[in-house]
């Protein structure tokens, strides 16, 4: 397509004033909100952590020391690798992966039900009851989970009443509260892409498969899931990215002995007062989650364009 012709048509169609506004706002969004801050962070991550007086001075050169620190640790430390940070990093990714799987397992049936079985009023009520709890702010929700999963909380109380356990289980220390909290926090981001994808599936296809004797498992495996794949990947990507990058839930619900990788990043920015190392760590998290997601999309043969559908 001829780009100059395209722009001319764009302005003819929208008028000069609206066209200019649209272009400027998109450009503002792209450069000022996305590219510029990230570019600063990238620049930060490759510089030494210097006192303000030395900024721009002779010592202010580019370096990869922060990235090296993440892998090898400080020169004085024992051991070859920075096992603490690397360990937390890998554990965070694995945990985020399982939170994503857990959300998918819960949300797929809900989304399917909403899209194909629920009737008008019921489906609206269900969607509403899914959305309304998210009006409660994150901190309040996290602390509510903490109380619920605490040793005197309803869950321990219920399990003890049932007689499944006779001692309260420390769900906080075992990180159960954390995974539940994370899973719950991003449930809508999983349900809505799934719902959108499944909802557009022609019901007759399901009936046709059923008419030909297919079991429910086969109908989902051969018809619904392949059709909903873009929605599934879009939901999984969002939940995975956001779980790996969550901060409040790990702060409040995480066990005392386990760290989430974002907490280490936070520490470098706040208590460590080393923004350069913090941004290096944050960029490592960003890059590795993107690579992981792209890898998964390759494995499951999903194209990036399909996700944006």
């Amino acid at each position, binding site marked *: 397509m001829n780009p100059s012709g395209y722009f001319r048509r764009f302005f003819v169609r929208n008028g000069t004033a609206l066209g200019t506004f649209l272009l400027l706002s998109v450009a503002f969004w792209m450069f000022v909100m996305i590219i510029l801050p990230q570019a600063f962070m990238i620049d930060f991550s490759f510089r030494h952590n210097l006192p303000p007086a030395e900024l721009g001075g002779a010592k202010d050169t580019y370096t990869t020391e922060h990235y090296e620190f993440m892998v090898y640790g400080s020169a004085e430390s024992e051991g070859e690798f920075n096992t603490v940070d690397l360990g937390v990093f890998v554990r965070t990714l694995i945990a985020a992966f399982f939170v994503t799987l857990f959300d998918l397992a819960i949300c797929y049936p809900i989304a399917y039900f909403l899209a194909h079985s629920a009737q008008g009023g019921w489906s609206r009520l269900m969607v509403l009851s899914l959305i309304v709890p998210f009006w409660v702010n994150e901190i309040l929700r996290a602390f509510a989970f903490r109380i619920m999963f605490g040793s005197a909380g309803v869950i321990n109380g219920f399990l003890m009443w049932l007689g499944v356990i006779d001692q309260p289980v420390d769900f906080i220390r075992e990180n159960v509260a954390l995974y539940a909290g994370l899973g719950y926090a991003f449930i809508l981001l999983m349900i809505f892409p799934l719902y959108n994808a499944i909802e557009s599936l*022609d019901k*007759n*296809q399901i*009936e*046709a*498969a*059923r*008419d*030909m*004797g*297919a*079991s429910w498992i*086969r109908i989902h495996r*051969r*018809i619904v899931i*392949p*059709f909903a794949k873009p929605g599934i990947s879009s939901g999984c990507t969002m939940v995975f990215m956001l779980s790996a990058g969550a901060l409040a839930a790990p702060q409040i619900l995480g066990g005392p002995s386990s760290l989430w990788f974002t907490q280490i990043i936070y520490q470098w920015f706040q208590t460590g007062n080393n923004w350069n190392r913090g941004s290096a760590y944050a960029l490592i998290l960003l890059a590795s989650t993107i690579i992981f997601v792209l890898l998964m999309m390759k494995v499951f043969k999903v194209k990036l364009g399909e996700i944006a559908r």
Partner: protein
Amino acid sequence: MSADVELENVWIRFGDFVAAREVNITIPGGSFFSFLGPSGCGKTTLLRAVSGFMEPSEGRVKIGGKDMAGIGPNKRPTALIFQNLALFPLMTVWENIAFALEVKGVGKAERRKRADELLDLIALPDQGEKMVHELSGGQKQRVAIARALAAEPDVLLLDEPLSALDLKLRQHMRTELRAIQQRVGITFIYITHDQGEALTMSDNVAVMSEGVIQQVTDGNTLYDHPETSFVASFVGENNLFRGRVKETNAQQTVVETNVGPIRARTSTKAALNNGDPAFVFVRPESLKFANGAHADNNIKATVHTEEFEGHFWQVFLDVAGGDKRIKMSLVNEGTALGHAPGAEVDLSFSAELAVALPEGQLAAE
């Protein structure tokens, strides 16, 4: 294998709404049977009751003599072809066709072989590797048939499968469907609102209106011997004269109408008594210009327009006291009819070609 399908006193209700009322039909195995009716008459609902997607509120559905109550669609010896075909877009053509075999756990090589055989049957050889969206409308149609046949059903159910096609293709597919049915020899139950489809393809047609079966017979009888006013007005074109029965016997009935007394054939099924309100139906092709010759019926009319259609002349006429313009079809014999609009003419028709029926429901125009 083909199987009889019997509907015994079937009622289907949705709350207060009755979608099917006291339906009693036996469809002989191996025949091509159509349900014909306007949209909303309950024909699709009946089909769903046969396929098992719905249970009748009352009565029984039997296939091959076996009561189907409580047996789901996946367990019935039927295969349904949906109005929109519902082919699986993410599978290749052959995978679509072989899906029923995949469900049964047939190995891949055998599935592929069977799919290729069916592709030959529907005259689409070597198209198995294509995706569904690469096919034309008529090809998709045939793939849907092959997919349904792969399950080796005793009864094939078709829910207006031709309605999405353009006219030419639709006419072609009629012939094709009938040929496939005769080749495989199983029972076809076909749902349509298109009388052309029903009359050309079917051994028997059930005309349905508002949940009630009006008449079940072959296409020819349906056209020539309608038993209800609905069938007379829905199947083909008919001119209607309203009136009251003046005298009646087993052969002929005289109905006093606005255009005078009309002598018509007495319907074998519908009993009329003197004084009953009655409809007389006369086909456009049964009307003639009266050339002084004696006929059972003579009426006066005024020519409104004459339309030339090649093999036919369509003449539209007004009759005194008639509530609707009547229509006459004359075979073109190579000379112009030459009536100016407003010309007064005498029409005649034989009593044998007119039928008197009790006043009743008429098909919407």
